[in-house]
């Protein structure tokens, strides 16, 4: 049987000042880790949850995002009446040829500006995106310089709130409605009528076409027909897959998070080591006594490892609790693929919390190992004689 845990717990309590400092050290490292990871997770989430599995998106071959794709008028007309595309209630194809323009707008908080993605779409485009619901105001009408903005965007750009207006080029646009796209990537966009967008921003080309095939078999056939057509030079991708490709920005954030966490964790391991060396130094006579009583080296080692593991565990719990309130906090950064603003929310997932806990326990054990080994390997007599 092992040395009782309460022995370790009480020792932690007796020197509570050091324990608390070490605990907090670990806790803060875990908090930073979870925080940065939740930023990346939130960013990823907003893209990964975007789009309807049934929809196909057509882009120019080679383009990485709809903001740099170009599709000519003739191409649009050819696609629009292809067989196999689902119909709207009024019999017209469920297809939206869209034009994407980046517009530089002033941020609400600071003086800076950022590019916001303006999407010109056809009425079918709204039907193709059931994720987005109008929650305030009304739908835009063509020819009147009217737009609707996502609610999340309104929090970051005050000119995107209901009733406000903004200038882009020569034109003044009025926000007549606010939509909510369920925290998807569409929550970073401004929507307006496609024909008006093309004329106002002087766009000869469309950017992309979003459409819904009648069924899976039609989808496969349409994809093949379009991609095989040398004149169209287009690629077809499922709408959700397209957005999954857009998570490049999460890469550097994750990288940054890993870098930070690793270096900080080494610091935390040092702190645990310091604490454990000190406590073992002070308790080395106790270790000697335990050995005389017949406890083996392994039991001593495990006992001290458990003690530092416990430090890590509590630190991890505190760290996770510290990071938890961030869940759902809105933020935004640049999408490195489109150079436009993405608005999203921190996401502290259970998965991340578990990762944080494992990380903290790792720090505890890593910091405790060497000191525990010293304790276990000190010869009995030497341990008994030391002051």
């Amino acid at each position: 049987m092992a040395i009782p845990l309460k022995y370790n717990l009480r020792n932690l309590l007796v020197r509570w000042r050091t324990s608390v400092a070490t605990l907090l050290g670990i806790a803060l490292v875990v908090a930073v880790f979870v925080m940065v990871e939740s930023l990346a997770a939130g960013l990823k989430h907003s893209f990964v949850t975007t789009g309807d599995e049934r929809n196909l998106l057509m882009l120019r071959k080679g383009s990485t995002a709809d903001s740099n794709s170009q599709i000519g008028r003739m191409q649009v007309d050819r696609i629009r009446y292809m067989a196999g595309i689902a119909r709207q209630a009024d019999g017209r194809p469920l297809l939206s040829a869209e034009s994407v323009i980046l517009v530089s707008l002033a941020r609400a908080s600071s003086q800076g500006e950022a590019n916001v993605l303006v999407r010109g779409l056809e009425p079918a485009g709204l039907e193709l995106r059931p994720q987005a619901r109008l929650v305030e105001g009304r739908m835009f009408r063509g020819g009147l310089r009217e737009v609707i903005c996502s609610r999340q965007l309104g929090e970051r750009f005050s000119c995107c709130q209901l009733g406000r207006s903004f200038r882009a080029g020569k034109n003044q646009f009025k926000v007549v409605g606010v939509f909510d796209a369920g925290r998807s990537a569409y929550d970073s966009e401004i929507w307006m009528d496609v024909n008006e967008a093309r004329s106002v921003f002087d766009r000869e080309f469309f950017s992309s076409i979003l459409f819904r095939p009648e069924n899976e078999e039609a989808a496969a056939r349409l994809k093949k027909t379009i991609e095989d057509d040398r004149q169209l030079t287009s690629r077809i991708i499922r709408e959700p897959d397209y957005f999954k490709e857009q998570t490049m920005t999460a890469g550097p954030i994750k990288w940054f998070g890993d870098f930070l966490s690793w270096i900080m964790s080494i610091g935390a391991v040092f702190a645990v080591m310091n604490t454990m060396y000190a406590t073992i130094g002070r308790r080395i006579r106790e270790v000697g006594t335990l050995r005389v009583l017949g406890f083996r080296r392994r039991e001593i080692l495990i006992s001290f490892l458990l003690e530092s593991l416990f430090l890590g565990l509590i630190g991890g719990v505190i760290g996770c609790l510290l990071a938890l309130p961030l869940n759902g906090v809105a933020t935004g950064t640049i999408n490195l693929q489109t150079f436009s603003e993405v608005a999203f929310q921190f996401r502290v997932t259970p998965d991340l919390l578990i990762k944080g806990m494992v990380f903290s326990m790792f720090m505890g054990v890593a910091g405790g190992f060497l000191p525990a080994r010293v304790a276990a390997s000190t010869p009995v007599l030497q341990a008994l004689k030391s002051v």
Partner: protein
Amino acid sequence: MIDLVELTKLYRQGDIDVTALDRVSLHIDEGEFLALMGPSGSGKSTLLHIMAGIDRPTSGQCLFRGVDVAQLSETALAEWRSRHIGFIFQTFNLIPVMTAAENVELPLLLTRLRASERRERVEFALELVGLKDRLKHLPRQLSGGQEQRVAIARAIVTDPELVVADEPTGNLDAHSAHEVMGLLATLNQTHGKTIVMVTHDPRAAQYGTRQLHLEKGELQHDTAQASPAEAEA
């Protein structure tokens, strides 16, 4: 029970060899209460440590019921100690964060006893040393004499054949020392424990059934006590 054969312990200090024990041979019978005496640095503690299995001789044998303790591995030694030896220190060495009862219970954690059996034994041992009412006290809430009695309870709770004590009264006043010695004598006489005790105090040595003198690592003379100490006290 114990046979020491030509036991030698050398300490190498730079170029000089210090001979802590010089070919000590000794036989100890079951039920003896041996008082080990001698000037400081004569090797008493060293001898005790080797008998208790926490130190190894440079040469010679230390046979405990025919088994050469010095040949056991580190892990086997630990187990051997937990079964056969009870150790009493000059500085008590109780675990400060544990109560008296928990300190006494510690060696029992190495046995297969159930919790209830352990508690019974702990209470018995503490009753024996007269501290049944101090179960929940922490070491710092006890006097030195009481601490040493808790340490004795811890040493005997596993019912070991051999109890070794290194200057058990060294840190105690005369009254407490008398109590502790009385306790050891009772253990020896009533409970039949074999005891080896190092002491500087001739009065404490009187409690032993046999006195042994070490001088510069060599056994000087060996007196079996004619009459037990209680007679005088």
